[in-house]
């Protein structure tokens, strides 16, 4: 046992394909989940009559049930009612689950903004939705940027669960390599190394964003 470089050489293309699938699902899921989270977080914050009741129930339910259960629910449940591909279900499951966490982060950010910002906007004739769009959401997102970037890392890791619904992403590849060669250490450690690399890239982006935010928010002198 131990790490077997020879196997790695033979399965390199499989891993790269899997990595590409993981990156693709991550990017799509991250973009939609962040937008979805901002939308739901804003509705929860505003307490829109009726609607907020539904969105709050949704946020709680999807945060407090396991992602794998949700993935199976959509994959086996929804596909009975209408024809949807596994890839659509995969993205959808990630968006609904991780988007619910982002919604709570955004709602917290919105609530922490001084009420004076809103009042100033209203006094200049802005509507409620304009006020959210131009002033509150940008400030909330900047305030919660770190937590949102943490969710980005989580979403990347969550894509590994999509292997259970036939999506040939990185973990699926590792699984196949292991069942072919019975080399679990090599198979899974390789996958882990790729995930960790993605994490490091996210950290790099986060640093760049922090530096930009500091310039704007004055956390350090400019």
């Amino acid at each position, binding site marked *: 046992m131990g790490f077997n470089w020879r196997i790695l050489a033979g399965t390199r293309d499989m891993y790269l394909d899997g990595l590409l699938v993981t990156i693709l699902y991550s990017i799509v899921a991250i973009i939609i989940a962040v937008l979805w989270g901002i939308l739901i977080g804003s509705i929860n914050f505003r307490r829109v009559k009726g609607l907020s009741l539904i969105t709050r129930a949704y946020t709680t339910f999807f945060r407090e049930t396991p992602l794998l259960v949700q993935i199976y629910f959509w994959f086996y449940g929804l596909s009975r009612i209408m024809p949807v591909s596994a890839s659509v279900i995969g993205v959808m499951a990630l968006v609904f689950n991780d988007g619910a966490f982002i919604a709570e982060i955004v709602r917290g950010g919105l609530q922490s903004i001084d009420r004076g910002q809103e009042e100033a906007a209203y006094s*200049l004739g802005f509507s409620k939705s304009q006020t959210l769009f131009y002033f509150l959401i940008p400030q909330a997102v900047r305030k919660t940027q770190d937590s949102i970037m943490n969710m980005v890392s989580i979403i990347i890791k969550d894509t590994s669960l999509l292997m259970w619904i036939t999506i040939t992403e990185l973990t699926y590849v590792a699984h196949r390599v292991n069942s072919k060669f019975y080399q679990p250490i090599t198979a899974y450690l390789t996958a882990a190394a790729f995930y960790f690399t993605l994490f490091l890239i996210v950290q790099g982006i986060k640093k760049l964003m922090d530096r930009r935010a500091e310039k704007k928010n004055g956390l350090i002198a400019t």
Partner: protein
Amino acid sequence: MIFMNDDKAVILSLQHVTKAFGKNTVLDDMSLDVREHEIVVLCGPSGGGKSTLLRTINGLEKINDGKIIYRGEQVTNKNIKNIRKHIGIVFQSFNLFDNLTVRDNLIIAPVKVLKKSKEEAIRQAQEFMDTFGISDKMDAYPHQLSGGQKQRVAIVRAMMMEPDIMLFDEPTSALDPEMIKEVLDAIRRLAQIGMTMIIVTHEIAFAKEVASRMLFLESASIRVDAPTEEFFTGVQDERLQKFLSVILK
């Protein structure tokens, strides 16, 4: 100094306005007319309802009873958004938009609400900033400004809407003494161009200088409403005398 003149049009009229937070009545049957070019200063002990009165005019506080009439039109939930475009307000804590540069703070409302062209708005902003001596701060973010600079930007932001009337809610209360003057000078400038204003302030010397009319608010009602000179010399009111003697010390 401009004195109350019945011939001038009434811009704003508060009629029997009542406002309570729970059981605590903060405005008790207040009535007030403000005419064009008048500068009305509200003073009085804290808790007298001064700030709340200003905020009701702008619809930031809902009233429980009475009417607010702006240029002959009763202010309602429906038209408040439109009326706000004509009423500028300057807050004690500035409330500049933290996520925007000074330039964007100034032009966003004219561009998005009044649908002015961006170039026109920037040109206008530059002009105001020159007048108030802060034209070098256009690219700064609010956190990079001093309190006095922030408040002057806030005044310009309100002026960019070309308001009919300006409301000032303790504009210098959050400022260090050396910055108070620059903000008061900015308000003096507005007085010179004949801007109609309602000002809540504790700067009594300043009030005496610019106000055409002074109001003394105490325990949720307007106790004294008099032309400035009379307010300081001719009004026989025990509470007012006591308040003035404390504040003028």
